[in-house]
């Protein structure tokens, strides 16, 4: 993996608050990289540091092998798709898209041609004469995308690009962004607070919390082997097991995660007491999700279709293979 963007011990403080705190991060060329975290976790500041809108308080940023120190945003080979799209209201769509070419002195005929090509790429051919105010949210998003890509950046930065779209449109745009990234082969860095979005779209994900990176890895890493309680909690869907529970089941006294599909449930042996009570069940097609209460610990279990689903209030026993228990960093 050749490095596209490299952050070395980068911090950004705002007064007493450290929005980004000594982050080390390498993003590869042609990678689709997601920065995932709750709001205020530093992921957007991190993106703005790469774009050049913020300067690091300390640390070092390298873009494509060159230092980013003192390089203003307009001389960086990266472009941004803003959360509010930031289309220029006084320009029509074609002039918005061609803006980057215009300020670089590209002659008008070529500007026209490349803007139209970019609009075709985002499936808005012939929209050039319209005003941003006449477009829907999804269309504005596409114009913002075209306006960034027309400059042929080496990396595209996207700040919560799908946040303002409704669910159906968002899923469609996720697909299109992935296709676009694969066709262009450039680096996409994408900020989101939606774990589903991050895990389904990105090659690799960095999970942010409190200005630090909690874990970097593939979607599978993050999902199956969360490094800490925070990651397991934020990414969701895994069961988080407290140290006592793990110890009781023969493991070390440590926090651990356990995926719902790794747990088996069964009827208690005749005369034996159940360990857990069924709180709720929900049918989801291929599986049923069963929520259990095991002496105060909430466990999510998935039961494949065709297997018996216990009734609400029923006492059950739970079993799992020790190899599926994934140990995590202590108290985090």
């Amino acid at each position, binding site marked *: 993996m050749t490095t596209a963007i490299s952050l070395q011990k980068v911090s950004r403080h705002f007064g007493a608050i450290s929005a980004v705190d000594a982050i080390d991060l390498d993003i590869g060329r042609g990678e689709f990289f997601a920065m995932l975290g709750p709001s205020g976790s530093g992921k957007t500041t991190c993106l703005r540091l790469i*774009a*050049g*809108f913020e300067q690091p308080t300390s640390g070092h940023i390298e873009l494509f092998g060159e230092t980013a120190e003192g390089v*203003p*945003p*307009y*001389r960086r080979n990266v*472009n*941004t798709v*803003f*959360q*509010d*799209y*930031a*289309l*220029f*209201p*006084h320009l029509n769509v074609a002039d918005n898209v061609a*803006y*980057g070419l*215009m*300020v*670089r002195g590209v002659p008008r005929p070529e500007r026209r041609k490349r803007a139209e090509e970019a609009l075709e790429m985002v499936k808005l051919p012939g929209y050039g004469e319209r005003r*941003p*105010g006449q477009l829907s*949210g999804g269309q*504005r998003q596409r114009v913002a995308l075209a*306006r*960034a890509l027309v*400059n042929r950046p080496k990396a595209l930065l996207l700040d919560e690009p799908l946040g*303002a779209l409704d669910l159906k449109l968002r899923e469609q745009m996720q697909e299109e962004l992935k296709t676009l990234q694969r066709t262009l082969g450039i680096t996409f860095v994408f900020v989101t607070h939606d774990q589903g979005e991050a895990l389904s779209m990105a090659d690799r994900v960095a999970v942010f919390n409190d200005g630090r990176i909690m874990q970097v890895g593939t979607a599978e890493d993050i999902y199956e082997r969360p490094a800490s309680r925070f990651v397991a909690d934020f990414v969701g869907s895994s069961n988080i097991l407290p140290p006592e529970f793990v110890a009781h089941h023969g493991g070390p006294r440590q926090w651990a995660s356990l995926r719902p599909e790794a747990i088996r449930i069964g009827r208690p042996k005749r005369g034996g007491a159940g360990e857990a009570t069924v709180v709720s069940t929900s049918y989801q097609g291929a599986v049923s999700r069963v929520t259990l209460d095991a002496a105060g610990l909430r466990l999510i279990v998935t039961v494949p279709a065709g297997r018996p689903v216990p009734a609400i209030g029923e006492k059950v026993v739970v079993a799992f293979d020790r190899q599926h228990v994934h140990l995590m960093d202590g108290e985090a």
Partner: protein
Amino acid sequence: MRSERATPLGLKVAAGAGLAFLHLPILLIFVYAFTTEDKSYQWPPPGFTAQWLAVTWNRPDVWQALALSVKVAAISTAIALVLGTLCAAAVSQSRFFGRETISLLVILPIALPGIITGIALRSAFSIAEIPFSFWTIVLGHATFCVVVVYNNAVARFRRTSASLIEASFDLGADGFQTFRYVILPNLGTALLAGGMLAFALSFDEVIVTTFTAGQQQTLPIWMLEELVRPRQRPVTNVVAMVVVIVTLIPILAAFYITRDGDQIAGGGK
């Protein structure tokens, strides 16, 4: 939904009376511009004549005063456009110590009674031993013209989303290009409106001018002097009529220009 009930008669009469109270005196000025009586304001006018238009046209002192007023208003407006815009940009685009104080100090001249501004300027000029001239009038007028431009510009800056400027930088435009292609077009109508208001304010200003002018007479000062002399009184009315019409045009234009610029620039989703 509009109310279906008819407006009560009493309300109609009250509204009409209010409007009449505000505007009849102005009409009266127009009427006196055509009276045949030139020593005093006599009602009803003994007769009507259009001769005062010609008389006014041929009076060199009117033309001098008018020329001075136009020059003062134009130059103060130009100064205000530059300083007001820069100040608005500083206050709304960056954070620095004393920002709130500066924004208050800039607005202060319009909140202060003109007489205070006038006295303050006059004493400042005499302490600094600056002789009263055309430029002292311009300086005096610029103090309140800046406020008008600043207020318009700062409101527009506030409504221009900050990410527009970042987007421009991001797309490769430097500071000057961003100002030229993004900030200025977004500010344009606000500056036009602010400039027109500033021009109108300067054009009919009396109080600050009396304190900052030397021998020169701006048009409003000239009118004040004329009222004291009972000679060719309707000439003053003719000039007043022209001033009303001339100042009304930019103010109406400013109103229509800013009325349509209400949507937030770049804030739509």
